[in-house]
C-alpha cells in the first residue's frame, strides 16, 4: 500500500515580487486490472519570468494524471508508456497550450514549464523528466541508500534548461523503464536540488532522504496530511530559504513491501 505526502511552496523571491507559485505537484494511486496499485506522482516547475507558467505547470500535472489514467483504464501497459504514451502526450499538451496561448493573446513559451513524473506499478516503474529537478528512488538491497534516477537537465549555465513547450521537447525528454520492484520514490523541483543532491558525487544525498522515508514507512496507507503539512513548514523554514529563494516542490512516496501472506 502506498503512503505519500507532497507540497509545493512559494520561494521567498516570489513572495517579495508577489508573483504566483509556479511549481505544481499531484499524486494519485490507481488500481490496475489485476488489482495492483499504481502510483502516479508528477511535478512541474513553471519558467521564472514566463507570464503564465503557473498555469502551464498545473495544467501539465493535471493533464498528465488525467491522460495517464485514461491510458491505463483503456488497458494500456506501463512497459509501453515510452513508446505508446509520452510522445503523444507531449503533442497533446503542446496543442492544448497553443490554444490557451491564443485565447490569452500570449505565446506558448509564456506557459513554459518542466515535467517530472514517476509511475510505479507492482514490479515495474517508469520515470520521465524534462528540464531540471530530479527523481530519486530507494536502492533495493541497501538500507537507507538512494539513487538518482535522472540528473537535472541543464544547459551550460545554471539558468538554462528544457521546457515542455520547446519544439524539441519530445527528443529531450528523459525516460527510464525498469522491471523491478521500487518501494520508495521522491521527486523534487530545482528549488530543492541544491539541498538534496550531492553535486560532487553526482548522486542523491541519502542522509536527506533516509530519515524522511524512515518516518513515512510505518504510517497508514494513502495521503498523509501530516507529512504534507510538515513539508510545507519545512520548505518554508529559514534554513531552507537561506539556500534557495525559488519555488520548491517535494513529493515523497513509500509502500509497505508485500509479504507473501498477503497474496
Amino acid at each position, binding site marked *: 500500500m502506498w503512503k505519500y505526502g507532497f507540497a509545493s511552496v512559494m520561494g521567498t523571491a516570489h513572495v517579495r515580487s508577489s508573483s504566483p507559485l509556479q511549481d505544481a505537484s499531484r499524486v494519485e494511486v490507481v488500481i490496475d486490472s489485476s488489482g495492483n496499485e499504481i502510483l502516479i506522482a508528477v511535478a512541474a516547475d*513553471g519558467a521564472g519570468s514566463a507570464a503564465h507558467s503557473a498555469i502551464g505547470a498545473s495544467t501539465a500535472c493535471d493533464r498528465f494524471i488525467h491522460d495517464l489514467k485514461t491510458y491505463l483504464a483503456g488497458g494500456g501497459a506501463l512497459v509501453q508508456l515510452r513508446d505508446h504514451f509520452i510522445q503523444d502526450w507531449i503533442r497533446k499538451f503542446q496543442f492544448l497550450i497553443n490554444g490557451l496561448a491564443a485565447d490569452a493573446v500570449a505565446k506558448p513559451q509564456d506557459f513554459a514549464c518542466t515535467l517530472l513524473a514517476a509511475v510505479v506499478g507492482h514490479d515495474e516503474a517508469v520515470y520521465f523528466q524534462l528540464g531540471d529537478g530530479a527523481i530519486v528512488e530507494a536502492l533495493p538491497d541497501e538500507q537507507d541508500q538512494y539513487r538518482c534516477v535522472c540528473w537535472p537537465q*541543464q544547459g551550460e*549555465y*545554471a*539558468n*538554462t534548461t528544457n521546457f515542455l513547450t520547446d519544439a524539441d521537447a519530445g527528443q529531450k525528454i528523459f525516460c527510464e523503464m525498469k522491471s523491478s520492484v521500487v518501494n520508495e520514490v521522491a521527486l523534487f523541483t530545482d528549488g530543492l536540488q541544491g539541498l538534496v543532491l550531492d553535486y*560532487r558525487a553526482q548522486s542523491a544525498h541519502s542522509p536527506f532522504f533516509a530519515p524522511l522515508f524512515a518516518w513515512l514507512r510505518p504510517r497508514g496507507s494513502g495521503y498523509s496530511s501530516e507529512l504534507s503539512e510538515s513539508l510545507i513548514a519545512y520548505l518554508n523554514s529559514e534554513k531552507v530559504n537561506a539556500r534557495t529563494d525559488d519555488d520548491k516542490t517535494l513529493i515523497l512516496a513509500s509502500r509497505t513491501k508485500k509479504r507473501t501472506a498477503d497474496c
Partner: protein
Amino acid sequence: MKETFDQIPFPDPEFVDNPEPRCPCVLLLDTSGSMKDEKKISPALSPVQRLTNVSMPSRTVRPIDELNAGLTAFRDELMADELAVKRVELSLVTFGPVRKLTDFQSPDVFRPPHLNAEGDTPMGAAIEKAIEMVKERKAAYKQNGISYYRPWIFLISDGEPTDNWQRAAELVMAGEQARAFAFFAVGVEGADFDILSRLTVRRPLRLDGLRFRDMFMWLSSSLSSVSRSVPGDDVVFKNPAAPDGWASLR
C-alpha cells in the same frame, strides 16, 4: 605549486563546503596614472533641485579615491545578500600594468585592496587576461561539479589603450557570440569612447560625475539578480542610463 596538484583531482576546498552555483565576475579596473588626476565634479542633483536650479558647490576628487570607496561599498552590498554571498565570485584585475590582484573569491573572502594609480593603459592585454581567467574558472567549476551562470567581465577605464586592443576586441566579439561571457565597458570622463564601443557588442556607458559608488550598487544588484535567476528568467537590470542612474549612453 599548482602543477603538483594537477595530476590528482583534489577538490577545491571552496567548492566542498559551498556547492551553490556560482556567478563569476571579473572587474577590470584602469589604474593608469591619469586616475589620480584631480577632477572637479558637481554633486548629483535630485530632480527637484534640478528644477529649482539650486546650485551646489562642486568639489575636487581623484577618480582613484572614488573607485576605492566604491569597491568597499560594492563588497558590503553583496555581503548583505544571503544568496549573493554564496554565489557571486569576484576577481580583480588592474591595468597598468596588468595585475591579477585577487582570484575569484566570494564576497565574504574578498577584501578590496587599496588601489594606487600609476603607469600606462594596457587595456588589450587586461581584457585578454580576463577572458583567459573566465575560461579557467569555468574549467574549475566543471571539474568540481559546480554549476554556474554566464560570467561577467566589467571594464572601467578613463583613458585609451596604450597597447594593441584589436585582438582583445575580436576575442570579446567571439565570446559574446558564443555566449561564453558578457562584457561591459564603462568609461570615466576622459575615456576613448570610440575604442570602448569597438571593444564591446553592448553600448559603452559613460560614468556620470565619478559616481563609482552608484555604479557598484547597480553592479551588486545586477549580479544578485543573475545569481538567483532560474531557467526561463529574463534577467532584467535597472537601466543605468535612466534619469536617476549613474551613467549616460554614448
